[in-house]
């Protein structure tokens, strides 16, 4: 049975994983330039060796509780069809290797706004790993619309 490798990280004590093949690199906290009027999930722009990368706060994107202002987030840089995007996460976990047998789709009762991003969970020995659709998490359309509607 083919195995899949996931880059894992923590958000508000939950374990998330994204397909390792889409991950460009993992780096420490970088200085970000704020973008006024941007959707709140965009936490700023960072200079990644001359490439300007949008930083997306995954806690906000997944509608979790905000990170405490003192905590320095880590950057998981993923490749998207529109250049690289950096996900801000609390902490980096191991690379996890799983196969399809431990996978189960996400329960129906998940909030609709989040359900598109979470493909399902892998049942690991000690906990559940949420499988994040990186491409969907980068899409800012509905988030932006929500922001402008609220403004």
């Amino acid at each position, binding site marked *: 049975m083919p195995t899949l490798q996931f880059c894992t990280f923590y958000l508000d004590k939950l374990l998330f994983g994204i397909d390792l093949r889409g991950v460009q690199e993992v780096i420490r906290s970088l200085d970000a330039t704020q973008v006024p009027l941007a959707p709140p999930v965009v936490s700023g722009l960072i*200079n990644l*060796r001359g490439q*300007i990368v949008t930083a997306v706060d995954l806690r906000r994107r997944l509608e979790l509780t905000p990170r405490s202002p003192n905590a320095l987030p880590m950057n998981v840089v993923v490749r998207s069809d529109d250049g690289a995007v950096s996900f801000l996460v609390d902490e980096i976990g191991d690379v996890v290797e799983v196969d399809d047998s431990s996978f189960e789709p996400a329960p129906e009762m998940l909030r609709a706004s989040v359900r598109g991003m979470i493909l399902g969970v892998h049942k690991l020995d000690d906990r559940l790993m949420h499988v994040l659709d990186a491409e969907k998490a980068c899409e800012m359309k509905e988030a932006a619309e929500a922001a402008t509607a609220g403004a």
Partner: protein
Amino acid sequence: MNDSDIVKDFLVESYENLDRLDRDLVGLEKNPKDKDALAGVFRTIHTIKGTCGFLGFNKLEKVAHVGENLLTRLRDGQLILNPEITTALLGMVDAVRQMLKEIDSTGQDGDADYPELRETLTRLQTPTVAAPAAAAKPIPEVPAPAVARESVATPPATPPTIKIDPPTVPRGKGDGSPHKPSRGKIGGLLVERGVVQPADIARALEEQERGDRRRLGEILVALGLAKREDVLAAQQILDAKPRDTTPETIRVGVNLLDKLMTLVGELVLARNQLLQFANTSENTGLQAVSQRMNLIATELQEEVMKTRMQPIGNIWGQFPRTVRDVALGCHKEVAIEMEGKETEPDKTIIEAIKDPLTHLVRNSVDHGIELPDDREKAGKNRTGRLILRAFHEGGQVNIEISDDGAGLNRERIRQKAIERGLITAEQAARMPEREVFNLIFLPGFSTAEKVTNVSGRGVGMDVVKTNVEKIGGVVDVQSLPGRGTTVHVKIPLTLAIIPALVVTCGGERYAIPQVSLLELVRLEADHAPTAIEMVHGAPVYRLRGRLLPLVYLARELKLAGPADAQKTEAAAVNIVVLQADGRQFGLVVDQINDTEEIVVKPLRKQLKTVKTFAGSSIMGDGKVALILDVLGLAQRANVVGGTRERAMAEKAKECVTGTEKQTFLLFAGPGDSRMAIPLSTLARLEEFPVSQVEMSGSRWVTQYRGQILPLIRLNVVMEERRNKLRGLQGAPAPGSGPLQVLVLNHEGHAYGLVVDKILDIVEDKADVKSAATRHSVLYSVLIGDRVTELLDIPAMIKAAAGKPVLPLSGAAQPVQGGR
């Protein structure tokens, strides 16, 4: 590599090939005997046919196949290219292009089968059927050939002629199929060069078929039919040819180039940091290495920049075809000439300029050049000339599109503008001649009496102007009645790097593109509260008598709370006067930093919804700064209304008033006189402490933005005989106060003009003139009811250069004094 990659490569390559086909075919029409060009056309079609057969695009293959058959006949000299064949072949190119588009979007080569096109192509290649049919019923879509005046072989009146070449080279078996290259080629070449008769080749071929393994040339020599030298010479020509056609280039993805640019940019930043570090270090080894690194990085940056440059000929290549089609469509005869094809702007500029240029070229053919009969009556050659010129000048690319047509009709333009309500009759009457032409760039203007299928399709001259201005360029038109029209387009070399003003607001830096920047105004703290007035809650500032609406950047970007607004009122106010969509407004920022050349990087899709920013850039310290979108910001602040009519009216008014009134910078001249220069000639106002003035030879210079700025002291240049006395007294040397310097650009060089005092900026008609009374002065003029001398900048610079600078001793003093 998978299938879709192969298809993608096929598409990219084929598009490029098709563009070349257009060019080659139009070129061939003029010179039908150009064997190399024909061979090139044949090869291209053959490649496309072969590849799509392999990829399973059968319909495409069928069309390409009949085209190839026709081309085979042409190449072998059985047919001679005439306008009818050219049109049919161009039709085939269009069909192939259409099918490629289908493949691009759907993956299939479409439903269209092009039976008529194929029939035409087939008919044209068979002499027996074609000749009578064509004579009886000429193909309707081919009118009198326009571009083909030079094609001597085919007088336009006669039906398409088909010449059957008797000495066709026998090809052994399988006539008509693509022959084996090595044999046919040398044989054909030898016949062509008159070395041997076709019959000799046939004999040699027979030898080969009988089992002779030697090469054709060798057999010919052995049989005594050809001399060894001749065969060797022919062989050399054949060997040389492929080398000519294979250019020393490789295909590299644009993404890769962009990435290289990015990395080099970052390397330059790292180098800057290294240099700073090395300068503070005592280690000479490190300093030497960092210096070397500095040189290499600079050179690398220059070379990488060049990779993004593309010759403008790349987009001009399609114009011969465009001109041919348009000329055929309106029954005109037009020859296109190009100069400066190798001029290289950035690839993004090339893309942005393509449509405007195409429109201008179409316009020239459609409206500019007259019908052949009219031209003859006017004593001109029946064939109109359309000349494209491109050249570099002053860090910009200049493009000229000239025709020798009827020229623009001033009266008609005036009338039209009045009819359309763009200007009043009174304004029209007062408008200077040159300005009249520029009315054609106003939205809603079109003098074309009838809308042809070429122009009047919604892409007016105003769109051309808008598109050119969008990339920081300017358009201008000149015309002589009866002699022709020239449109000048001036564009920057690159969009990737732009000059910008960096400002600070709410602790972050923002870059404002210099193209939309008009001027900077600083209101001192004690002056600010009274200078900013309110119009029903909207802040305005009186700028030279006109109300300038003010926009607070911090408020627009929601950077600060309401408390900060009060704080700014108590402090000095920095106003950046900007222009968007023809309207001026003042942007209030916390701090104005400096102008810089910045590398523009687009924003990703997550931020596309934020209209106030045009992009981002990396600053010298490695941090990211946002680039303001001036128009977006103005729209957000409701400074510019959505109504286009208002902007139109304003523009029309500016056309008139702008030339009547001019803005001048007033300053104190020698001998308590008042002098002025037009504000447009001024690059910047600067203050330099005297300690920054250095000596270069006998001249004053200072370091300014990494360059050496020669300083010209007005007092020294203007004063003549008294100079010596005052020089000895050291009077012109400024005291401890900083130097007031006007930075001027003249013929691509910057000069600093040192004046005693800057007085004011005024707007005036300046129409009462009297002759100059001393050198370096154009004339005296009444500005604001006082006599003011208008400085003659070129003469002044010349005078300064020619003058042995006398007050040398005086000049040295402030430097030594240091203070």
